[in-house]
């Protein structure tokens, strides 16, 4: 999505010439709107945590049920991001390198998780995987249960994160130089050697960026997961649901404490993604 534009090179840096009008107006409005919508509410969250003592804060974020939810949220997000790394690369590869009927439709469909509301994804995946669903009815007799347990969470998170990897890798793959592969072939390299030693290194930054984006999105995901998870405490209760649970008991301070933990993780992920994107631009020989 946003990363599609990475394929096009930004213009060479010029000396700042403020011929164009509107700098003060547009920057001023940007900062005002950013403050009202994002920064003020964000600071409310941070200030609210100061109403807790350190012991209270620590007790809220390290209760066994909350710890279990971190393990589940991060574990499921990591597994889902790994699956998306492999299949996202495969789908991007097939879309860039091969011709097949219906390719345009498939390409458009990859963005479905961006456009389909998460609650809709949640109930429809549940309907598919529950014991009486299209897929569930064949798996249940084999003793495989994919809904109402952590397996379902991983599947929902795979759905949510898939386009991130595909859309980050696709433009980079389109820009890789066939000449390098021809050179490698003429030097006697096999296709597999070329893939692992020529192509893979050049798309590694994009792959990792997509992975980090899918992971970050999965950690905060709520809508698609709660329908399929079963939401059993200690087993299949994700961290955002812990926040909702505390809010429903009017435990605003406790909810805020857990939210701050999630917020810190969001910041870290954002920095990681920024660093990866900078690496990707350097890699592609563009100015950072």
């Amino acid at each position, binding site marked *: 999505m946003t990363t599609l534009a990475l394929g096009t090179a930004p213009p060479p840096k010029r000396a700042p010439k403020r011929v164009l009008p509107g700098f003060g107006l547009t920057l001023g409005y940007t900062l005002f709107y950013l403050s009202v919508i994002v920064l003020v509410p964000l600071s409310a*969250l941070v200030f609210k945590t100061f109403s807790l003592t350190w012991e209270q804060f620590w007790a809220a974020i390290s209760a066994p049920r909350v710890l279990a939810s971190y393990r589940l949220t991060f574990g499921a997000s990591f597994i889902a991001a790994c699956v998306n790394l492999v299949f996202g690369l495969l*789908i991007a590869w097939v879309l860039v390198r091969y011709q097949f009927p219906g390719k345009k439709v498939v390409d458009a469909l990859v963005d479905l998780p961006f*456009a389909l509301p998460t609650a809709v994804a949640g109930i*429809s995946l549940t309907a598919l995987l529950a014991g009486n669903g299209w897929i569930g009815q064949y798996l249940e007799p084999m003793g495989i249960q994919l809904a109402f347990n952590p397996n379902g969470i991983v599947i929902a998170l795979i759905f949510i994160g898939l386009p991130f990897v595909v859309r980050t890798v696709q433009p980079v793959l389109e820009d*890789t130089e*066939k000449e390098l592969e021809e050179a490698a072939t003429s030097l006697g390299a096999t296709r597999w050697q070329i893939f692992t030693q020529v192509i893979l290194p050049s798309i590694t930054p994009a792959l990792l960026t997509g992975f980090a984006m899918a992971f970050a999105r999965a950690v905060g995901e709520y809508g698609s997961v709660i329908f399929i998870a079963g939401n059993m405490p200690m087993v299949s209760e994700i961290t955002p649901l812990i926040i909702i649970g505390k809010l429903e008991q009017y435990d605003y301070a406790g909810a805020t404490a857990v939210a701050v933990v999630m917020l810190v993780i969001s910041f870290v992920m954002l920095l990681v993604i920024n660093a990866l994107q900078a690496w990707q631009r350097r890699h592609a020989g563009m100015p950072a």
Partner: protein
Amino acid sequence: MSHVDTASALPTGTPAAATGGHTPPRRRAKAGTTEARWVQWLLIGVALVFLLLFLVLPLAAVFTEALRKGLDAYLAGLREPDAWSAIRLTLITAVIAVPLNLVFGVAAAWAIAKYEFKGKALLTTLIDLPFSISPVVAGLMYVLVFGANGWFGPWLAAHDIKIIFAVPGIVLATVFVTFPFIARELIPLMQAQGNDEEQAAVVLGASGWQTFWHVTLPNIKWGLLYGVILCNARAMGEFGAVSVVSGHIRGQTNTIPLHVEILYNEYQSVAAFAAASLLALLALVTLLIKTVAEWKSEQELKAAAALPPERPNTP
């Protein structure tokens, strides 16, 4: 990190330099740069099966479940008053949230893409922030500002203004969640296009507004359209953030996704999927418009590339 060294030793992205100034015509893939036919079909097959299982089946399931008991049951689910009020509220929310973020997106992209200033990288990162914050945390933030015990809670109560558990809270949460969409679409696009055309217009005497309207806007219209429809799809479909601030009052503060949740939890499967099918249709229309917009913008790029160069290319 040996793989990094391998890559940096190879001159990626500089084909012109390697061939002495002029790029050779693009050759079709030939033997050696592509896989055997059976490998190709195997990879295509695995990719398509994965997409079928994870994307096509869930989409098909929405419509099948909605029509499980026939068209009459489907329409009955959409005709109940609560469904109507959910649809109305969803439309109102999108009609307010999308234009707000549109104005912001254009202003932010203009400031960031057209000028150099200190703190630009930080500003760009902050604009991305709502993408990485969990929707539930976003909703909680607004509760802490405007809720009964929040910063402005007592003042709002004294003036009889309701934001949380009311429509304004839903709109605010939606604005937050869809905040970066249009800006993130426009910034790279406007950066890639540079300032030359706008500067020419200004030098020739156009006002700032005329420059934007007649020079910049035609250049960014397809990206802008894509940003707007994606922002709209997310605004109409947002669940987590809206769920925290809505209070789930039937007929009053339920959007379509919240209506879907309530029906689903009450085991009214057909009605839940009927409402969900509206959102699925919206997603399909969004993807269709996106594909058309991409195609149109490619056509225009090709048309522009086909024009004769304005100055000779010196090798």
